[in-house]
């Protein structure tokens, strides 16, 4: 019985660790591409890295505008996120959260305004 316990324990530990290691490796396959992407973190400017990501890159013009605003505007001023009234609430939240993240600690206030069809959202400093 003791030898059976030993065999079961060794088998379980071996199988468990192999399974976890295999699962971890799946996240970085193919390895050359993963290495190239990781190296890119040190060679690509922040804006370009963000644009390559689905969270921020889903609207490249907006992402550029947020980064430009962050560089130009003072930290103690709030920002207005003007959105076309037709835009869905979930998408508005998504724009607002992304803007608030980059522009922190500035407050991002959502204002519904009719704009051109090509401009779903727009950012501006809030009037004092």
């Amino acid at each position, binding site marked *: 019985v003791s030898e059976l316990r030993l065999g079961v324990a060794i088998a*379980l530990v071996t199988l468990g*660790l192999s399974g976890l290691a295999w699962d971890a490796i799946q996240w970085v396959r193919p390895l050359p591409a993963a290495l190239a992407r990781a190296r890119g*973190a040190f060679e690509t400017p922040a804006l370009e890295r963000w644009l390559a990501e689905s*969270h921020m890159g889903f609207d490249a013009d907006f992402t550029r505008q947020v980064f430009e605003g962050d560089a130009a505007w003072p930290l103690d001023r709030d920002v207005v996120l003007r959105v076309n009234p037709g835009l869905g609430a979930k998408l508005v939240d998504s724009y607002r*959260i992304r803007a608030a*993240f980059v522009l922190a600690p500035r407050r991002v206030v959502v204002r519904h305004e009719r704009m051109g069809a090509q401009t779903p959202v727009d950012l501006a400093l809030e009037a004092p």
Partner: protein
Amino acid sequence: VAGIAAAIVAGVGLLTCALVSFMGPLGGDDWLAIWGLKARALYRTGELASVLRPDPDGEFSHPEYPLLWPIALAAAARLSGGLDDRLVGAVWTLLCGLGAALAFRATRAPLPFRLACAAFVACLPYYHRPRYVGFAEPLLLLWLLAALAESDRLARGRGPLARFALFLALAAGTKNEGAVAALAATAALALGGWRRAALAAAGFVLLAGVLPWRLLLPQSQEALADFALGAFDLSHVAVVLGVLLHEAMLPNAAWLLGAALLAAVGWPALARRRGVLVALAIHLALLLASFAFTVHDPTWHAQYTWRRLLFVPIAVLAPVLAECAACAVAAGSAPATAPQADARAEAQRA
């Protein structure tokens, strides 16, 4: 050989964690809306109140969450000269390594099993999912593993108890689940007959880990955004159990069966760690009960959170399972002396 193999697996876990955390600018919405946003605000202003400014109505940033993780990130950014995704990637990898090291420290077993435990923690899928990079759970896990390592030294004097209470307070200062874990740990301590120590630790956690941010928060933002007493509905617990059954337990039945088998073959070690098991059971029961108060659709809420909620208990259970494996191997290697070794260990603990 077993130790070297385990060390290699731990290395694989760390390397893949590092690659994942540098492969893209950070993970999911909770990083952008909560942790990253607060860390950026703190880094740029150095003022605690700045975390409330971007979202004064608490619509997405969870102002009621404790601030230790954003403060740690902001401090690291001050030291390194900037807060960007590369810094968070480096910190994430460091947290994975420290988690593995603390799991190693918390395991009471021969070296190969301690290394196996470290490898298990370093390879946990949580560290490798890009959408979780930047979340607070790995820091929470560090405090709880550190508290676990102190929990079986409590008989040695006041030092271990003070450190145990400190680590639990830091856990409560990292995430609200940390306060739940502290409650579970001190309750288990009290149930184990350490009532005065439990009371002292719980009092310290409340004073140092829970109350400071609660007192600083404006009254309008004190309420937990995801839970409310008025939302109480016991049927939510059944819904959440259903989600856990279908999404967590059935797809991972092999893992559950493996853990149960390991516990069965190394049951003496399991008996020695009953305090940890009681604490984990209370922790999970409290987390499950909290869903009765969710203001969200319970199915969505459980689906959105179960991986993060189970990551910490699974990692805390790892040292216990490693000790079970060590116990079974010791029994198989030297059947005549294993009970004596168990008795000796029991006597040492007493």
